[in-house]
């Protein structure tokens, strides 16, 4: 199954290889570390960060794009536009933001923007040539949001890499993610600490270049 998935990935990758601006999207639930990974990629290859990351969920509430990211390793090279998307969720409660320390008005504003962010993320799914799903390895991978995103990408034949992030935390269990999505290429990293980030670039180049 994994081999078949890779064959499909290669097939669709070759289809969009001729496109001038390949879009690689970072998708996943809120607080999984999408922006932290985007910052890591941009810092490593462009020398500048992409956006602000925070421990409060829904920090990224608008689509952010970094154009012309160029990754080169050994004989492989990949040029793409990196799209960081707001986390997809089925619920948003402004009271959670108040518990995290925001004031009432600010929390309500953040919740409103977060709902719009989720809608935008979903709308942008169709525009992606390749998607990196970022999951928090300390959380249950069987959430319906994860299954819905991956199911929709599969239905659209958009190639996917799954990143299990936060490996630096003791509670991280990459094996759970591997068991949940056996047909996909999965890389475990810590975007904050840079752990295993070279392996991530190798996989990205192998799958998408």
């Amino acid at each position, binding site marked *: 199954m994994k081999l078949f998935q890779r064959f499909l990935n290669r097939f669709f990758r070759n289809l969009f290889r001729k496109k001038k601006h390949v879009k690689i999207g970072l998708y996943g639930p809120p607080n999984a570390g999408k922006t932290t990974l985007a910052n890591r990629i941009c810092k490593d290859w462009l020398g500048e960060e992409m956006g602000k990351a925070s421990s409060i969920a829904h920090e990224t509430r608008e689509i952010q794009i970094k154009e012309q990211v160029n990754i080169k390793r050994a004989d492989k090279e990949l040029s793409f536009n990196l799209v960081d998307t707001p986390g997809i969720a089925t*619920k948003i409660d402004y009271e959670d933001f108040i518990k995290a320390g925001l004031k009432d008005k600010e929390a309500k504003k953040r919740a409103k923007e977060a709902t719009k962010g989720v809608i935008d993320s979903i709308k942008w799914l169709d525009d992606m040539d390749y998607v990196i799903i970022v999951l928090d390895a300390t959380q249950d991978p*069987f959430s319906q949001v994860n299954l819905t995103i991956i199911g929709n990408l599969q239905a659209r034949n958009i190639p996917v890499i799954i990143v299990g992030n936060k490996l630096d935390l003791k509670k991280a269990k990459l094996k759970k993610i591997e068991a949940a999505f056996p*047909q996909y290429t999965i890389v475990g990293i810590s975007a904050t600490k840079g752990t295993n980030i070279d392996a991530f670039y190798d996989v990205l180049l192998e799958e998408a270049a």
Partner: protein
Amino acid sequence: MLTFQYIPYADIDHLSSAKRINKLLDLVMAGNIILMEGRLRKEEEKDLIEITMEKIDNRFKGIELSVMNPDKDDGALVDRFKKGMANLLLGDRIGMTIIGPAQLVKDIKRDPDKIQLFIEETKKKTRRRRK
């Protein structure tokens, strides 16, 4: 009190995607936990999340959603063939979907063969009388 509303697949089979989603969301927004026979299409699941986001306000906090379906790729070839045939004949009738309002259902965990519903605790305000 919690209300579980069972929806047989026949109730939504003839409906368009938009009508299916609206029917489910109307019931959830009225405070029901839905147990639906079968599942929505992947596209409909995505639309359900999108429409839910549009409806979120200070009272309605969104939904908890979980789909149980037996489409795992493991098992012997014969079992997979049987599942494939069942899918072909029954389509989206296989499995079960649970949808609850987020202000009532805190979390739904899949394991993946069992489902656990975590319900929000209702806080009772009690006043202590000073003696």
